[in-house]
């Protein structure tokens, strides 16, 4: 047996045996197409987790039970129609085939939604109080509507059961309708649906009773609840213990899932899916507190990413099941790798929250570092098979995430791979990104890739600047350029980059340039780099003003991550200034003067500072590409039709002499880690 025995002890929920203690908890996938149906992509996404050994998948975060709880904004699952039943059957079969179990979260989102689309409903809430995160105004729900929604819950549960799913989870978390009734912050009613504790509990209790009556005693019905809303006027931990105990006493709830924090403000929302700035399992104590008072299994997720961490939590008995949802997004074969004694090969979630930050924009959930996740249906593999064709000599120039992924995949295919990196270490821009406060864990992406290319025997040459001669001397069959970019400081000559008046965020984060005392950061990109540089400088004692011409500093960063930057920047008194263009920088009396112009009024202001840092994105390093392009057999071109269809590049099957040349990542144009790794994977998987 192994040190991970605690993970592999089966446990029953109601009569359902879960093969291990690892759960993929409910999250919004944004994959349900055709009006909220669990179609091919959805099924394959969960099948992969089941294949990888996950014990229980609770799918369909915020799957709606009623037609006036909109689903289209987040392509969530639509359980308000019988049309879903055959789709559920496909889903259940796919998961059951691999020994997994699957349930679905069902909910009515109440005020936590958008009304300006789909059926243009009036959103409903116990007392008609606006929800700030979605800027959602709503009506006060009427009793007839309550009974209708209660009946909708029961019908939705029936559909899940008829579809062969193993259970339903009632969402009473994230400020959905049930916990909108629970929370005195939102429920100001004085009728029998509010006021007293029992009154606030009544709606949820009626839902539970109706659902249980519909599905019978043996079908799993769980509840996901918060452990503490973290609002003075909301539900605290003692309130939640009381609530959990109250519902548990009905013997109608088969398990409780516990989430730390409420989430109807930007700041609390960031707690719900803790990013890399959080410590491990920050809210476990809340789940453990709930477990104290209930008699059924308790599931807890939130920043549990490592098998040792999971084992420690389970062995100590804090909870019964560990939710490892992002861990499975990063690596759906998480469990299989533990069982294969390949713990070192687990691609661990780093908390970049690319997944959830896309979801909040209504975009499909993708993993920043695993491009195969949710693209299983297109044929992108998590386990790369060895080629049965020719073994090629593959040379990759540039050891950033794109280059590392290309080298990894090519090596997994069994090719002879050489990876050349100019710097003394691999990782590319991730090395820089990880220097910022609270961002060190981003390096987990490159750490895994480096461990993998080393394991796979890639010939890694550091401190080596590639030129045409070096590439030709290696006689590659395939040369992949991932040479990245360089800070684009010379877009506006008035900034004075050529005279050294401005430096880049790279210069700051790498430590190449000492932090100035009084620093202006001009950030046109408004993503991580500018915020990280500001945080870095402020943490070194600089006085920092972060200026952007965009509508808000960090506006390009998703909903679970900008709050943690803001917490840090506001605390360090970083001044954030919007709508100002940096027009010119000049030197005067040993100081730098930055000339700013308001985009909307053209009014000019000047700042006298010691240091001006410009974040204006990158410009591709393409000299080597153009040097090699003409001599390559494909003239450096990638066949987009094949690429987008995840098909082999036609040039691979053409019988011709000469080197195939591809470039990808920021060496083409600035995009992000996922883009570079996606291209690397889809290009190299058929190599």
């Amino acid at each position, binding site marked *: *047996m*192994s040190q*991970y*025995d605690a993970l*592999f*002890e*089966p446990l029953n929920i109601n009569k359902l*045996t*879960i*093969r*291990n203690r690892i759960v993929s908890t409910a999250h919004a996938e944004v994959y349900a197409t055709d009006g909220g149906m669990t179609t091919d992509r959805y099924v394959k996404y969960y099948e992969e987790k089941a294949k990888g050994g996950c014990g229980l998948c609770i799918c369909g975060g915020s799957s709606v039970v009623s037609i006036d709880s909109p689903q289209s904004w987040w392509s969530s699952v639509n359980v308000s129609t019988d049309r879903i039943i055959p789709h559920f059957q496909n889903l259940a*079969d796919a998961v059951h*085939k*691999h*020994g*997994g179990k699957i349930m679905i979260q069902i909910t009515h989102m109440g005020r936590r939604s958008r009304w300006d689309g789909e059926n243009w409903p009036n959103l409903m809430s116990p007392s008609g109080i606006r929800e700030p995160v979605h800027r959602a105004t709503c009506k006060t729900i009427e009793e007839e509507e309550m009974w209708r929604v209660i009946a909708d819950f029961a019908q939705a549960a029936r559909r899940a059961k008829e579809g062969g799913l193993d259970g339903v989870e009632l969402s009473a978390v994230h400020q959905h309708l049930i916990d909108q009734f629970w929370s005195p912050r939102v429920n100001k009613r004085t009728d029998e649906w509010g006021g007293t504790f029992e009154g606030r509990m009544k709606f949820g209790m009626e839902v539970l009773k109706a659902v249980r009556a519909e599905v019978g005693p043996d079908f799993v019905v769980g509840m996901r609840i918060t452990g503490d809303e973290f609002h003075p006027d909301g539900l605290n931990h003692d309130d939640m213990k009381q609530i959990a105990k109250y519902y548990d006493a009905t013997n109608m709830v088969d398990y409780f899932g516990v989430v730390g924090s409420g989430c109807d403000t930007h700041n609390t929302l960031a707690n719900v899916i803790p990013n890399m700035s959080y410590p491990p399992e920050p809210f476990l104590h809340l789940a453990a507190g709930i477990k104290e008072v209930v008699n059924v299994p308790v599931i807890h997720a939130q920043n549990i990413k490592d098998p040792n961490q999971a084992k420690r939590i389970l062995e100590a008995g804090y909870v019964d099941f560990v939710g490892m949802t992002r861990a499975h997004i990063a690596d759906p074969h998480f469990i299989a790798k*533990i*069982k*294969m*004694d390949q713990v070192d090969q687990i691609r661990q979630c780093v908390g970049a929250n690319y997944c959830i930050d896309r979801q909040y924009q209504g975009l499909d959930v993708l993993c920043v570092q695993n491009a195969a996740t949710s693209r299983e249906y297109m044929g992108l593999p998590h386990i790369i098979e*060895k080629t*049965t064709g020719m073994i090629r000599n593959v040379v990759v120039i540039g050891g950033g995430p794109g280059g590392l992924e290309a080298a990894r995949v090519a090596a997994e295919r069994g090719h002879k791979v050489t990876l050349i990196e100019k710097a003394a270490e691999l990782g590319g821009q991730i090395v820089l990104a990880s220097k910022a406060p609270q961002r060190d864990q981003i390096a987990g992406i490159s750490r895994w890739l480096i461990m993998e290319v080393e394991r796979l025997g890639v010939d890694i040459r550091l401190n080596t600047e590639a030129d045409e001669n070096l590439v030709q001397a290696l006689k590659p069959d395939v040369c992949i350029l991932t040479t990245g970019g360089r800070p684009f400081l010379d877009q506006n000559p008035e900034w004075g980059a050529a005279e050294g008046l401005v430096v880049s965020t790279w210069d700051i984060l790498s430590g190449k340039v000492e932090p100035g005392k009084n620093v202006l950061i001009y950030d046109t990109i408004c993503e991580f780099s500018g915020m990280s540089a500001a945080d870095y400088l402020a943490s070194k004692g600089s006085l920092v003003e972060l200026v952007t011409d965009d509508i808000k500093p960090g506006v390009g960063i998703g909903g679970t991550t900008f709050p943690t930057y803001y917490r840090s920047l506001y605390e360090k008194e970083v001044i954030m200034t919007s709508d100002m263009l940096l027009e010119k920088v000049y030197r005067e009396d040993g100081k730098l003067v930055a000339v700013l112009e308001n985009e909307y009024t053209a009014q000019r202001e000047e700042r006298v500072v010691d240091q001006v840092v410009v974040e204006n994105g990158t410009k591709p390093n393409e000299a080597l590409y153009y040097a090699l392009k003409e001599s390559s057999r494909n003239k450096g071109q990638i066949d987009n039709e094949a690429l987008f269809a995840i098909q082999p590049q036609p040039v691979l099957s053409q019988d011709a002499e000469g080197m195939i040349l591809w470039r990808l990542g920021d060496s083409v144009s600035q995009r992000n880690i996922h883009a570079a790794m996606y291209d690397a994977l889809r290009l190299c998987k058929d190599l």
Partner: protein
Amino acid sequence: MMFDWLTPTLIAVLLVLAGIGAVRRMNLWRAGQADKVDLIAGLMAMPKRYLHDLHHVVERDKYISRTHVATGGGFVLAMLLVVFVHLFGVDSKVLAWLLLAALVMMFYGAVFVFKRRLNPPSRLSKGPWMRLPKSLLTFSITFFVLTLPAAGVLPEGFGGGLLTVVLSFCILASLVEMLFGMTWGGPMKHAFAGALHLAFHRRPERFGGGRSTGLKAAVLGETSHGVAKPTDFKWNQLLGFDACVQCGRCEAVCPAFAAGQPLNPKKLIQDMVVGFAGGTDEKYAGSPYPNVEVGNAKGGPDQIITDGLIHPDTLWSCTTCRACVEECPMMIEHVDAIVDMRRFLTLEKGDTPNKGAQVLENIIATDNPNGFSPSSRTHWAADQNLNLMKDVQQADVLFWVSDGAFDMRSQRILRAFVKLLKAANVDVAILGDEELDSGDVARRLGDDATFQNLAKRNLAILSQYRFKTIVTTDPHAFHCLRNEYADFDSDLNALASVEVLHHTTFLNRLVQEGRLQLDTFKGGKVTYHDPCYLGRYNGEYDAPRELLASLGIDVAEMERSGYRSRCCGGGGGAPITDIPGERRIADMRMEDVVSTGAELVAVGCQQCTAMLEGVVEPRPVVKDIAEILAGQLIEEAH
């Protein structure tokens, strides 16, 4: 020749002395414990056992088999005729010519024995054995010359005084070797003891192509258990030790010896002889136990063996792989002897080294060697939807899961096998938490009490259910169930009409019946490692190879494969007692694998898998045949 009386006198005297020696030797054997043997039937069967079974083993070395036929056959015939012609003076030219012919044959063989001894391989013992070819040549030449007058080639009374002296000396020298030495402890002892050993062998089932590998049950509740001193062995075991020809074939195949652990099966047998005959090992002229000096061991029939004759580490180095037994031309049973002595150390002294005592305690307390909670035995199958016997009461096949159930690596084998069973729609059930450890490790570690306890409890459970076949992926459990449980099953008859199969045999049947659709294997070169408890213990060499062939795999055989497969080092509790050596057996086995150029080594045993995977990478991939098959399974589309 002068002094006509001399030759018959010398022959008579030495025959008498040989007779005295024989009686004396037999008394040494008879000091051992009684064992039921059909003496007459054994003696009757002996020539056939010699000519067929023993020769079958010797025949593996063609050079020595031919040499031995000539020398041994020539000598037996010649000696018989010498008695008639030279002792009784039967005057027959025919006999004389026959004798001459026999001596020529013997001489011919002896020349090759002589050649072999010019530069003998290290496995052969030296010392008196170096003298033997000369004695054989002397005997054949001397009696050839002596017989010439009887054949009418030379006149009676030929030669002079000098020749008479020389010939007399030669007669004496060769008869001392060939007759006196035969019963008083010279190299020729092997002929005398060997013949009787074949007649009174403790496992007569082995003759005629049979297989007898199950250990004999210890009698529990006696004042002492196991073998403490030489006289605690059965008398025919002692006889068997005396049959040893010190050819060292056992030494050449012993994995522990090769790994530099303090075991050499040949030396062990010789030490047993020292023990029951009394004395020291200073005359031993073969390879020592690695890193143990020869000359310091001494023993006697009633002295505790592990007090000065054999260090316990020697006994604990054995992996019970049976390579020595398989290879022994005299069909000596080394493993029986070693386990007999282990029984004393474990049951009487509680001296099972390293993790041994803890493992035995675990087995006693938890029914598995690693002390896992018995209630976690079926955790691995939580998602397998397997029938439990206690629910279904009957099934065609009972899948004996074995303790691999507790091990994450082995669980992969189990799951792969279940996948195949399901694909073939086999009506299968498992015992679940009712299954107990088979007792294999306990038995090999000498704790026969625990083994017997487990066997009886397992049989009691098995007797509750109906099934035709037991299949297991664990060759050790397979061996216990198939070969060792019968001793305890006479009341229950739980396994009386049950076929016990290894999973490769069972899977091979499924493939032959077309019940598994398999894709061709497209990986690189594959070799196959025969697990000892599947191959040598149970004779299953073909099914695994046929399965691999069914995937289109042309097995790149290792030099040591089939009945000569080298142990992985994992048997007999060896990884538990963990006696230090110079190398690890598993590393050597992996070198065997690597030398075939294979990228994948197919195995049919969880223990072998664990041992071979314990070899540091880079190394070929290790997979159970069930895993390889499951990987190539064409599943019906849902």
